[in-house]
């Protein structure tokens, strides 16, 4: 009860918040030049229709045999039509009927669609299933044919036809409102309102209807445009009420006189097109603003010193993250201190360098013209055959460094400075075609999130064999044999079955094994593993680490593993580089760093390991150290 009471108090705040967002929407819409222009044009057209008697002195239906097909000017602003009627007058009065007809259809569709959508979305049950059935039925009917049939039995009344068309358009509103309401039905603030005894009707009116108001206006303008098009189309076919001036009737007259006076068809067509374009632009502008306000502005709190890096989920590179990283990178505290380098242990020092990164800087150009540096002056040596851990908190630039080696930085990102040498060849300067040869063949990549890194539309087999056929030039059967062997090697129990499976049929652990198999499929020298265990269950994590260690021993491949977890480093790595705020702060053999972490940030990371034997040191102390 207390919880409900608390949220109950919160509910008005939330709605007030949303109302504020909506008034922002209206205000922002008025700043959208295209939207305002479109709206003004629409208002002008409506005004012209209302003020028709003031703008012309002619009767739109006044037939005059003496004045047939006169050109523009000479008393008639736009000339006369095939029956000698004034075109300008017919255009103005036609707007009245055409727009009013479309309004009838829109209102019928909106009232019935919103009402049924609200009931189906809010109460569900039998009404929901039957309503969705009727919707499918209505959507399977071609509108024009139904209207023609209706006209055949009910006669050529504009209003009847538009009411029937409104009924056919109910799904447009029903589906929108239903989706919105069933989405919002179980929101906490609606629950809270319900628990605190607010009646269903009030909940619908205050909390639900307000949410869908703007999308309804958007849908309404689209439906209005469709109604105009269909009504004009029917009249154009000659199925309308010939006694009233409509744009469709004018088009019909113009088309029959297409040979004699081609300009007659232009005016009503222009009216329809201008109205249609204005409605579409209005809807587009509204949609743009709506999408803007639906996207909450993400704020990323600046993490000054990491207390628990293991709990932080590494974020994707959003502009906000980049800016945040840039802010921290600009922090002068760590700028001048050099990387702490530990002495090499005698055994590993002998191996030659495979990857040598020198002074690497990575940046993202910002809207204001500046460049946000997310990696700055990073130097890193990875020796052949070793497992090298690159450790740091989220946003420290470790994944950006890894992606730079692959030259697969997200859109906008670029290597600003420094060199990345693989076996002496600078990857930052090779052509993109050469880089494509190097990727997969000499450098491979194991991603962080297994499920999102497999193409959902192709089988595992297809995705495994494609690179092998390109890189190794083997036949389809050979590639399949290799893929099956690899799947067995990475511990997949039934390789044949997995080979034929789609990604969504695999578990996360299985998918990660498949991705590891893919990474080593073309015998790379260097495998870059970007937090390969973060997205997995704890038990699976250990298995994947075992697998990586095994593969490393069997294939002799070099691994650069990006992680935020010293447990992974302790388990797997020969050497470690600690990264903070886009720089390497400490590097050396894993043992040496474990024995004697010198940089305060390294110590903070150590303290973050949850270890039963040793409680974490006081926060303030580790910070001042």
């Amino acid at each position, binding site marked *: 009860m207390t919880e409900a009471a608390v949220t109950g108090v919160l509910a008005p705040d939330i709605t007030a918040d949303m109302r504020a967002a909506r008034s922002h929407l209206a205000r922002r819409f008025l700043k959208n030049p295209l939207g305002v222009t479109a709206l003004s044009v629409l208002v002008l057209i409506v005004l012209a229709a209302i003020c028709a008697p003031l703008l012309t002195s002619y009767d739109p239906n006044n037939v005059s045999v003496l004045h047939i097909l006169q050109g523009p000017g000479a008393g008639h602003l736009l000339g006369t039509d095939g029956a000698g009627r004034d075109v300008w007058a017919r255009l103005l009065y036609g707007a009245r009927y055409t727009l009013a007809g479309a309004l009838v259809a829109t209102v019928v569709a909106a009232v019935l669609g919103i009402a049924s959508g609200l009931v189906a979305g809010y109460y569900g049950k039998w009404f929901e299933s039957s309503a969705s059935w009727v919707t499918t039925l209505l959507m399977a009917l071609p509108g*024009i*044919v139904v209207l023609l049939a209706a006209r*055949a039995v009910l006669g050529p009344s504009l209003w009847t036809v538009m009411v029937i068309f409104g009924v056919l358009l109910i799904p447009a509103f029903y589906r929108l409102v239903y989706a919105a309401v069933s989405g919002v039905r179980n929101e906490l603030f609606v629950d809270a309102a319900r628990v605190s005894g607010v009646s269903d009707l009030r909940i619908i009116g205050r909390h639900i209807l307000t949410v869908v108001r703007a999308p309804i206006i958007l849908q309404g303008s689209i439906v209005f445009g469709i109604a105009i098009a269909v009504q004009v189309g029917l009249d154009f076919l000659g199925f309308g009420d010939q006694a009233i001036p409509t744009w469709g009737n004018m088009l019909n007259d113009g088309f029959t006189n297409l040979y004699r006076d081609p300009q007659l068809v232009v005016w009503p067509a222009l009216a329809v097109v201008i109205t*249609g*374009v204005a409605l579409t632009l209005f809807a587009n502008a509204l949609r743009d603003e709506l999408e803007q306000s639906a996207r909450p502005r993400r704020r990323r709190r600046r993490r000054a010193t990491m207390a628990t890096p293991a709990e932080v989920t590494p974020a994707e590179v959003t502009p906000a993250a980049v800016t945040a990283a840039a802010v921290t990178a600009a922090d002068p505290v760590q700028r001048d201190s050099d990387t702490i380098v530990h002495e090499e242990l005698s055994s590993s020092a002998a191996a030659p360098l495979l990857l040598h990164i020198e002074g690497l800087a990575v940046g993202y150009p910002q809207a204001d013209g500046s460049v946000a540096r997310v990696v700055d002056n990073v130097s890193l040596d990875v020796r052949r055959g070793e497992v090298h851990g690159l450790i740091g908190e989220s946003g420290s630039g470790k994944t950006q460094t890894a992606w730079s080696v692959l030259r*697969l930085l997200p859109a906008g990102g670029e290597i600003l400075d420094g060199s990345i040498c693989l076996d002496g060849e600078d990857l930052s300067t090779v052509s993109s075609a050469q880089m494509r040869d190097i990727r997969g*063949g000499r450098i491979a990549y194991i991603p962080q999130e297994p499920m999102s890194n497999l193409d959902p539309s192709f089988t595992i087999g297809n995705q495994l064999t494609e690179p092998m056929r390109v890189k190794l030039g083997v036949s389809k059967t050979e590639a399949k044999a290799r893929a099956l062997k690899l799947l067995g090697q990475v511990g997949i129990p039934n390789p044949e079955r997995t080979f034929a499976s789609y990604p969504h049929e695999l578990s996360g652990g299985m998918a990660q094994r498949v991705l590891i198999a893919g990474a080593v499929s073309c015998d790379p020298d260097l495998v870059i593993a970007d937090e390969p265990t973060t997205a997995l269950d704890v038990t699976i994590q250990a298995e994947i680490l075992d697998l990586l260690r095994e593969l490393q021993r069997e294939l002799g491949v070099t691994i650069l593993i990006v992680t935020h977890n010293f447990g992974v480093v302790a388990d797997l790595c020969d050497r470690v580089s600690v990264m903070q705020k886009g720089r390497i702060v400490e590097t050396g053999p894993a043992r040496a760093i474990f024995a004697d972490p010198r940089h305060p940030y390294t110590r903070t990371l150590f303290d973050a390991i949850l270890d039963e034997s040793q409680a974490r040191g006081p926060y303030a102390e580790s910070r001042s150290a």
Partner: protein
Amino acid sequence: MLTFTVRRLLYGVLLLFVIVTLAYLLLYAAAGNVARTILGPTATQATVALKNKQLGLNTPLISRYFSWLGHALTGNFGSSWFTNQAVTTAILTRLTVTLTLVFGAVIVSAVLSAVLGVWAALRGGWVDRFIQVFTVLGFAIPGFIIAVFLVRFFALGTHWFKPTGYVPLTTSFSGWVSTVTLPVIALSIGLVAGVAQQVRSSVIDALRQDWVRTLRSRGVSERSVLFKHVLRNAGGPALSVLALSFVGLLGGAVIIEEVFGIPGLGQVAVLATSEGDVPLVMGLVVAIGVIVILVNLAIDLLQGFLNPKARIS
């Protein structure tokens, strides 16, 4: 896959049954005194009664409906009240013409939207802006207005194409092209606008997926990433838009056929509904219902091919 197909087919048949029943009852209930309409105001009361008996209109509506349904199941939809031509013949002779236009428009739109959408997504800049403008215009301008201007400029103005009529493909290829091109263009423009926009946004969306980076990291060529992987993933949503537009396309064909004087289903529809020829209208309802259901089934199967998750085994 088979059970999925059968279930969708059964659902379609049920839908068709409901539509046909509603249409039959509504049309006959509202039809009024048909014999009087056919024979005109000068006919005597006796001839009207006789005509009513000939048409079978003197029996109760429900029993007439069941007898119609029984005949319909054997492919016999009766004959037109005004021309006495069998409904099945009247529709089948025109069906191919309309299907040529509609499927021509679907194919042209699918190809053009894929090209324009991918182009806009990849190149951005002026190509993208051009396609945005084209989308707004294509969406806002009704197809028949485009048709009128196509007739004006390309048939009457330049004589490149025939303004009216239809030449079957079997008679003359060039004649077929010169009569079919303009109607197909008029039908396609609105469709291309909607589908190209969808292709554009789903390609942009697919390019942002993690698996694109992983594919590139494997050294897969950019061409394969784009045309094999990204396009296949972007195809599903685009296909949905195409499917939703199909019913509208059939309606649009009715008007377009009128503009170009093409003897298709649209002309039958206009004729039958303006005269109140109920047996012919019922035949049209069935024909269009069957087309819509078959097309939706085909789209569902294609969706399953594109998106393995949509497959129901």
